[in-house]
């Protein structure tokens, strides 16, 4: 620094010549940018990320929908906290909603009614908040399916899959805690079910319930406790995880589809400034707008129709919010009689089995990337997405999982289905039980065959081109249909994909075949025994001649 001879004031006169032609706004922008950069060195950030490339595909916006609905949730939720009182102290309602005047209820319920009926815009914000929460969870779910079916969880993104999975669980927890806050009849019944579920757990259940509810159900503590979780603890963890999730997207760079010019070593798309910023920023407002539209026109969770919580009444056709449905459905599908008294203790397998089943399901989702990586033994980085058909076993497993979830989910509405279609409740439950087992099996088999058939079709098109519909009679009297060959751009999409073959069992250095290796070979056979290899240039050469 000491070697610099020119005084710091020197640069000032130089630009004045040019800036005399510039407008005052540009001079202000320059000064402001300079001021900030000299204090934050933000120019480095702009240089690094300003033209970062994001690839474009409709399926990449599902995660964006989740992100933007979370922002909407934060904005509307903050507004609601200014009015909501998380207390279960009994008050006599004396607000604007006439049918409930004079009814005893908790302060939580009464303040929620005040938000709905006495705060201008309160009902709108409450409904936007609820719709945004439903959109959030739905978007996360579909985003996860996109990641799964395109193989975007493969190395180096396994840990981001885990983070995303935690985000999904946190979103469910946020949904359930929020749903329980108004302390209305429906949410109180939801809590009652949670209480029963916890009590049914062996050894620890009774005490966990006792501590959670601060004594006997329902107690006067639960709403306040859920409120702390809902607005403080869970959102804090969620925000940190979300930030980490996005940091990893930047570190790994986004995946892309294989295509002309799109290789595993590049990212093709639009730069953050200006294109992606404008598109994504605009999309945020569109998502917000759609959610606000739902909040404006569609009533959701009309707690004034349900009334305050009371352990005695319940309305027929009680339904949890849709995202909890799969858990409720699991409880409904348990066959009767699965509870025993043994050694003076009650073993509620009718609770334990569904709990273990659900835990198994979500743990399977959590660990899938690691299992597949172990089976393939593939240590390469994968930045090009798989078309679902090109990973037939993975796609089939995914479909089986979706159908398993769907059967549980459908079971949560068994009573509604029964009354709506005038069926017997027993029949609906039995059909659902059958679907829970058979659905995934059939779905698996059908999907795998469909994937292989689609791969065969791709091969056929890559080799012989499209059927043109033009029939030509040859001199010898033979009729053929002329096939139109695909151009190289089309063909590239059909031939560029990953292909694995089953693992061969080989003895290790000691000349032994270990059980683990046998198992891995078995898994590998299951995954890759049925495979359609991509077309090679040689085949095309040969194919062209016949």
């Amino acid at each position, binding site marked *: 620094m000491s070697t610099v001879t020119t005084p710091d004031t020197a640069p000032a006169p130089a630009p004045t010549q040019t800036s005399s032609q510039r407008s005052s706004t540009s001079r202000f922008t320059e000064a402001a940018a300079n001021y900030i950069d000299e204090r934050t060195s933000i120019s480095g950030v702009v240089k690094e990320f300003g033209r970062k490339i994001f690839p474009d595909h409709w399926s990449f916006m599902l995660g964006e929908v989740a992100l933007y609905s979370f922002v909407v949730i934060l904005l509307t939720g903050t507004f609601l906290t200014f009015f909501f009182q998380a207390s279960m102290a009994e008050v006599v309602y004396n607000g604007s909603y*006439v049918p409930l005047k004079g009814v005893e209820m908790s302060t939580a319920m009464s303040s929620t009614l005040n938000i709905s009926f006495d705060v*201008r815009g309160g009902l709108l914000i409450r409904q936007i908040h609820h719709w945004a929460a439903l959109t959030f969870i739905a978007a996360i779910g579909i985003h996860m399916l996109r990641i799964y079916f395109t193989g975007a969880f493969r190395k180096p993104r396994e840990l981001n899959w885990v983070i995303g999975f935690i985000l999904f669980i946190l979103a469910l927890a946020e949904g359930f805690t929020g749903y329980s806050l108004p302390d209305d009849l429906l949410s109180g019944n939801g809590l*009652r079910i949670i209480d029963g579920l916890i009590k*049914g757990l062996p050894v620890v259940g009774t005490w966990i319930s006792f501590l959670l509810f601060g*004594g006997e159900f329902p107690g006067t503590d639960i709403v306040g406790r859920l409120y702390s979780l809902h607005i403080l603890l869970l959102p804090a963890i969620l925000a940190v995880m979300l930030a980490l999730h996005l940091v990893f997207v930047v570190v790994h760079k986004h995946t892309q589809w294989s295509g002309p*010019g799109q290789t595993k070593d590049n990212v093709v*798309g639009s730069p953050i400034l200006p294109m992606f910023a*404008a598109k994504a920023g*605009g999309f945020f407002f569109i998502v917000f707008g759609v959610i606000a539209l739902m909040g404006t026109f569609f009533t959701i969770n009309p707690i004034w129709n349900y009334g305050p919580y009371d352990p005695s009444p319940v309305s027929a056709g009680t339904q949890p919010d849709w995202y909890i449905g799969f858990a409720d459905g699991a409880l*409904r599908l348990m066959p009767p009689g699965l509870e025993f008294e043994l050694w003076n203790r009650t073993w509620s397998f009718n609770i334990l089995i569904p709990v273990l089943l659900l835990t198994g399901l979500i743990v399977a989702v959590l660990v899938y990337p690691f299992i597949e990586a172990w089976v393939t033994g593939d240590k390469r980085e994968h930045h090009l997405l798989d078309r679902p058909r090109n990973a037939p076993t993975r796609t089939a497993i995914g479909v089986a999982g979706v159908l398993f979830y769907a059967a549980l989910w459908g079971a949560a509405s068994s009573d509604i289905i029964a009354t709506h279609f005038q069926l017997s409740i027993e029949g609906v439950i039995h059909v659902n039980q059958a679907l829970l087992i058979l659905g995934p099996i059939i779905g698996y088999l059908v999907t795998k065959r469909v994937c292989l058939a689609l791969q065969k079709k791709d091969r056929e098109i890559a080799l012989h081109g499209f059927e043109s519909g033009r029939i030509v009679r040859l001199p010898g009297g033979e009729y053929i249909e002329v096939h139109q060959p695909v151009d190289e751009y089309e063909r590239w999409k059909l031939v560029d994909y990953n292909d694995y073959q089953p693992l061969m069992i080989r003895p290790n250095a000691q000349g032994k075949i270990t059980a683990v290796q046998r198992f891995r070979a078995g898994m590998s056979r299951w995954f890759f025994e049925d495979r359609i290899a991509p077309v090679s240039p040689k085949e095309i050469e040969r194919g062209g001649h016949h």
Partner: protein
Amino acid sequence: MAHDDMSGKDITAVSSAGVSHETAAPGTAVIPSETFENPGFPAHRPRVTDTDPKAEKKAERQVYTFFYLSIVGSIFAIASYMAFPIEDGDTGALRLHTMMLGIGIVLALFGLGFGAVHWSKSLMANHEGIDQRHPVRGSEETRARAVEIFKQANEESGFGRRTLVRNTLLGALVAFPLPAVVLFRGWGPQNENPVEMLEHTMWKKGARLTLDPSGLPIKASDVTLGSAFHVIPEGLNESEHRLEEKAKASVLLMRLDPSKLKESAERTGWSYDGIVAYSKICTHVGCPVALYEQQTHHLLCPCHQSTFDVTEECKVIFGPAKRALPQLPIAVDGEGYLIAQSDFHEPVGPSFWERSSS
């Protein structure tokens, strides 16, 4: 960074230039000996707004019209907030208020959103940008330096050498959060045992059966054949723990043709002239079993569809519940009111670990 017409040659040149760092094991992947060459980008197709100045002008007009509309929406929302009051307590007024405010906000949001997206799609330069990927793992040099730093830290601190220091540190770190775990005992009241609380309800010998929610006592003669009453013990509404007691003591009272009731020997005398009282709290997870089918004498839980047969001491005939609903022994007092003979003979409600029938 944004190249346009990159030929296929360039792409393959890039991938063979060593950026790919393809040293990782491919596992069971099949690496074909010869592959197709990536054909590179197809020719860039200009949009109509790139070639036709009129279309460009039109798109520009559309974009700023969207933004104008957004401003109009915001103003409309503010005006609606003031113009449509809700304070008179009329639900129609509330509906109108919510709708007008919402329409303004939605217009403001959509104007911004569609304006920005339209701008980016029709007017902003749209040639493909390209970023090169680099392996996620750090360079060999960086990794070596990281290892070196850890080694140096280990030497300077003696973490690996002074094993007792290290192990006691780890022990202390494991132990220090434990008091926080103990603190959570305070979530439930001290000196109370949940098991004892779950084993008893408010019902006791001589307690009158009263209507839920009014608390008026019920005469046996009021309970006509085929009727069902939701019942709470007398004094419940005045109880300090009203909801907690109600969550255990809620009862369903039904009168059936006495000949239809199949009563076991030990329960003779628990009913009165065909009037039976059963706990309303489901033995599955505790929902109120509130749906009574008068014709079939079945009780249905609306939460998970457990079904109980009142004629057979409320045993489970369908659904996930296992245990029958506990029966409340009842009698009639001198004035003809229904009273309880005692508390339930077993814990009511959902199963819990410490529960035992003996």
